């Protein structure tokens, strides 16, 4: 019974696990590319570590797996197949994404949940933006990242973004917002994110959100 309760708690997935894809939403977008990232997030008075992997068959088709691990063990994993339609222009690149997903009861129980995400992102030399609407199980959400990019011309760059997240579920509604810092050097990327609960009316979630992500792509 205790195990089932823990699994259900871990099944209450953060929006970061639904709206964002490894590695830091950007790579790999090349044939045969793969990557890993670990995201440690503190939210709802709990800390969960996500181990996430991605394999790109070709720029338009990839698959991802996200496995959560909390203080009480393994949670429910999310398997997804992001499908992307890229458009490359002279000074920018953009893509529409459609991501079907399934939450697998690896943490216990027998409940499988289906989900879907529709996203749009674009990047120029100076500006990055990502918009994502999604649902998984009983959770529906909107995630927006907009900000500036500072490449140094030697293989690394800083992204300073602002995040707005809105979540609606059977247990209530929340809006969180805050800054995001993304840094990468060659094939290693990191993302630091802190969001304040601007609207907090949820029976199962409360408080602010903090996460740190470290990833690598090949």
């Amino acid at each position, binding site marked *: 019974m205790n195990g089932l309760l823990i699994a259900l708690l871990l099944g209450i997935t953060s929006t970061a696990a639904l709206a964002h894809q490894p590695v830091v939403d950007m790579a790999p977008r*090349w*044939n045969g590319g793969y990557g890993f990232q670990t995201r440690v997030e503190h939210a709802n008075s709990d800390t969960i570590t996500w181990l996430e992997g991605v394999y790109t068959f*070709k720029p338009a088709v990839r698959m991802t797996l996200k496995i959560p691990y909390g203080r009480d063990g393994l949670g429910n994993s999310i398997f997804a197949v992001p499908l992307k339609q890229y458009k490359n222009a002279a000074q920018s*690149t953009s893509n529409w994404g459609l991501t079907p997903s399934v939450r697998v009861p690896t943490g216990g129980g027998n409940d499988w949940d289906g989900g879907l995400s529709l996203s749009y992102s674009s990047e120029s030399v100076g500006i990055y933006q990502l918009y994502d609407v999604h649902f998984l199980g009983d959770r529906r959400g909107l995630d927006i990242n907009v900000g500036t990019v500072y490449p140094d011309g030697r293989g690394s760059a800083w992204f300073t973004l602002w995040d707005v997240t809105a979540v609606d579920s059977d247990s209530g509604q929340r809006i969180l917002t805050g800054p995001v810092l993304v840094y*990468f050097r060659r*094939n290693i990327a990191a993302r630091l994110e802190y969001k304040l609960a601007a609207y907090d009316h949820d029976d199962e979630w409360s408080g602010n959100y903090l996460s740190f992500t470290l990833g690598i*792509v090949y």
Partner: protein
Amino acid sequence: MKNLTVSVCLFMLFATPAIAQNYIVNVHGMVCELCSLGVAKNIRKLSFVDAAKYDDGVQVDVENQTVFVAVSDDASLDKQALFAAIEEGGYSPVGIWRLTDSGERLELQ
């Protein structure tokens, strides 16, 4: 006199520097170095790339959306293979130029 002529000819032959084969490709969409790692990775796999130049034969410039490619002296550029490698890296090559020793760019058709 004959020996001197032969020697001079041999000197001139071997003293003539090899013509560098450096190319620059304009790539639409390539504005992020992390996302474009696959472009460099794919180009490095091509047999005609000279790994001794640039960064293992390739240099990516996201600010100008260009890729510099060095081709070995004893090989020739396969433009079709180069463009395919860039497309498989997720981006769109739209033009290619040969860089002369004097820095001029000669567009290839």
